[in-house]
């Protein structure tokens, strides 16, 4: 060990980074100790609430982040219109649930379909939401990115931004700028849940929160199995590794790329429907902020790395929720904290938390 330390070349850059790292660690530890023990403003029930809220939102960010990472792994471009794909999923799920709440349930008197058969309604809402988002992801690739395949990297990026603005405004013109509210089935009503006793208080674990979190985990596991165990997954990994070699091996690269956009769109659509069910209110801008946050999460975890996107999403969600409280700062600057941590991670570990060192071809 001493030999290893002796071998380190203490360049000014390294020393500067070490000084910053140590200073930060000291400050953070002092803050955390102060907030949790000496000042002890929040009880255990409040911390649990922060944790729950962070996990739920983290799950949604993770799903959207996976979409960014999948596309980057294959095409080395950031799909900035991904947030809008999520927004379209939210709208699709909304219209399905609205339709179901308008028609009467089978056999029951005075109960609409949504409440008579909530499970079927929810499953259909998710399928339609994910399906519509997947379709738009596919169309996005075909219309905005495929024609620019050979162009310099900046051009598809601009096209993505243009597509994002187009989709936002198209949604505004088609559906109106007013905010709409999801009609949940009574079974999964927003703001209801299990009450967990913590000390002499009780913390609410909302049904929608648990539902969203469990579904996020299930979808992430599903994707992991898809990528690791199926032939399509193998093709995706091959194309991500080296496009030309994969084409030489007989993989239809265009088809794999389209399927990747379909999958990433479907995940974003599912996240969108979850967002609507858990948060309720949305309009055409609903995809903008989660899109940026999920992109941050994907970069935080290591862009191009799927477990990295999942981890990045969770970490970002938890940091947003717990960060201000842990550091004893204003809740208004939770975004500042989240993005500062992103910057710090990129300074000290540029490839992200789980990121891989990029090979030459990828750069």
């Amino acid at each position: 060990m001493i030999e290893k330390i002796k071998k380190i070349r203490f360049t000014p850059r390294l020393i500067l980074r070490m000084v910053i790292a140590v200073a930060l660690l000291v400050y953070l530890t002092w803050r955390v100790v102060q907030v949790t023990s000496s000042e002890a403003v929040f009880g255990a029930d409040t911390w649990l609430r922060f944790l729950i809220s962070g996990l739920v939102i983290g799950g949604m960010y993770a799903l959207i982040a996976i979409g960014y990472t999948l596309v980057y792994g294959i095409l080395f471009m950031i799909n900035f219109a991904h947030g809008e794909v999520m927004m379209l999923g939210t709208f699709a799920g909304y219209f399905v649930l609205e339709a179901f709440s308008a028609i009467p349930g089978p056999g029951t008197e005075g109960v609409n379909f949504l409440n008579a058969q909530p499970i079927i309604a929810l499953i259909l809402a998710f399928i339609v939401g994910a399906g519509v988002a997947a379709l738009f992801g596919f169309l996005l690739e075909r219309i905005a990115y495929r024609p620019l395949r050979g162009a310099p990297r900046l051009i598809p990026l601009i096209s993505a931004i243009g597509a994002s603005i187009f989709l936002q405004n198209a949604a505004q013109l088609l559906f109106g700028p007013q905010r709409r509210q999801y009609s949940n089935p009574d079974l999964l009503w927003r703001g209801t849940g299990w009450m967990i006793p913590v000390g002499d208080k009780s913390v609410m674990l909302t049904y929608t929160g648990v539902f969203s979190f469990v579904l996020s985990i299930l979808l992430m596991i599903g994707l992991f199995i898809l990528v690791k165990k199926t032939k399509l997954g193998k093709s995706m990994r091959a194309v991500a590794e080296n496009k030309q070699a994969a084409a030489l091996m007989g993989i239809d690269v265009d088809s794999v790329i389209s399927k990747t956009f379909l999958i990433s769109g479907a995940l974003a659509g599912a996240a969108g429907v979850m967002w609507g069910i858990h948060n309720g209110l949305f309009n055409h801008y609903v995809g903008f902020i989660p899109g940026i946050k999920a992109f941050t999460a994907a970069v935080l975890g290591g862009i191009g790395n799927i477990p990295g996107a999942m981890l990045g999403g969770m970490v970002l969600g938890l940091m947003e929720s717990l960060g201000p409280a842990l550091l004893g700062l204003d809740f208004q600057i939770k975004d500042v904290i989240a993005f500062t941590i992103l910057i710090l991670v990129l300074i000290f570990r540029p490839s992200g938390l789980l990121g891989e060192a990029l090979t030459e071809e990828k750069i």
Partner: protein
Amino acid sequence: MKFKHILVILLIAAFALAGCTQQTEEPMETEEPEETEEVVETEESEGTLPQVCLDDAFGCAEIPAGETIKIGMGAPLLGDYSMFGTDISQAVALALAQDDGFEGFTYELVAEDTGGTPEAGAAVANLLVTDPTVVAIAGHIFSGSTDAAIPIYDTAGLPMMSPSATNPDLTQKGSAVFNRLAFTDADQGRSAANLLFNELGFTKIGVMHDGGTYGQGLADVVQAEFENLGGEVVAYEGITPGEADYVAPLSAVAAGEPEAVYFGGYAADAIVMMNQWAQAGLEGVLFFGCDGTFGVEFTDKTGANGEGAIAASLVPPDSAEKTAFDEAYAAEYPTEAGELSAFTWSSFDTGNVLIAAIESVAFVEGDTLFVPRGALVEAVRNSDFTGLTGLIKCDEIGECNASGPAFYQVVDGVWVPLDLGS
């Protein structure tokens, strides 16, 4: 390939043409070239300008025959806060439409969207001062966007009368053009703190705000006044407007175990907070809002969660004129007066006050209407008008409000006047 290029060029040209020919409120197209010189005092003896205009510090607005006298407004007409802009612009438009006009010139409202932001408030102000037929401003609506616009209108000599910008500092900046009909947040905050401590008997409250000029201004007044009265403010938290999840700041407030929570901000965020009330551990704690959280949007989107919430409104006492206005408003528009926001009646009064001021200084020469701008600024400041909300008389700094805030509570999904007997 070539065909594709031609197609793309044609598409772009089609879009450009569609954009250019769209008739939105664009008064700039009708401007005559020599009008822009009038804003600055000129010594040119054109011979056609009346002496009053040459003497006036800001010159005259010249409205040729066939044009309308325009009153401008910067309001949130689109987006999360559109209920305010829609309600207020509708009421002012009704006031202008009901008036018979002046010497054959009718009035027109030019309402531009600000989305409620200060940046857009300044942009709209810059836009409206370029139109020579805009003589007065009914606005702006949000305190933040009004604050940004006041210096611009000061330079151009356009008088303002806001029905809803309530931040106290707005009249403390020495502006000659800004006046307002709305009660100040200083009044509203003090009334709210008084109500919470003395009438409702709470001793521990939490205070929250949305970081804006209006919201934080109110929250600060309530905090100071409540502590002055002897109460304890156990938590003071700010939120970022436009988010979907406020459980974290609400939980932080809940940790202090308040008996009630005061919120300075707008309905869009209040709705999200109200729906997450129980999740955050604030079950049973009273939500005390402000004039920004009042309206049908709040009751619609919170449903059962909003039961018992309190907000402030600006409803005038009943009178024959109020009933007549309520009926006219309901006949003309799909909503009722006071449904979307608290400011329907004060907006109607704003329109009429401005008309009265314009008619007191304007005159016709030839077939052009001249409105001396400096004289109009003074006329608006010296308004002495009885409207639906009472006697509107402005003091030296531009406070013209006639009636203070009235507090309302959600009972069975509807806003009813707060009944302290319960």
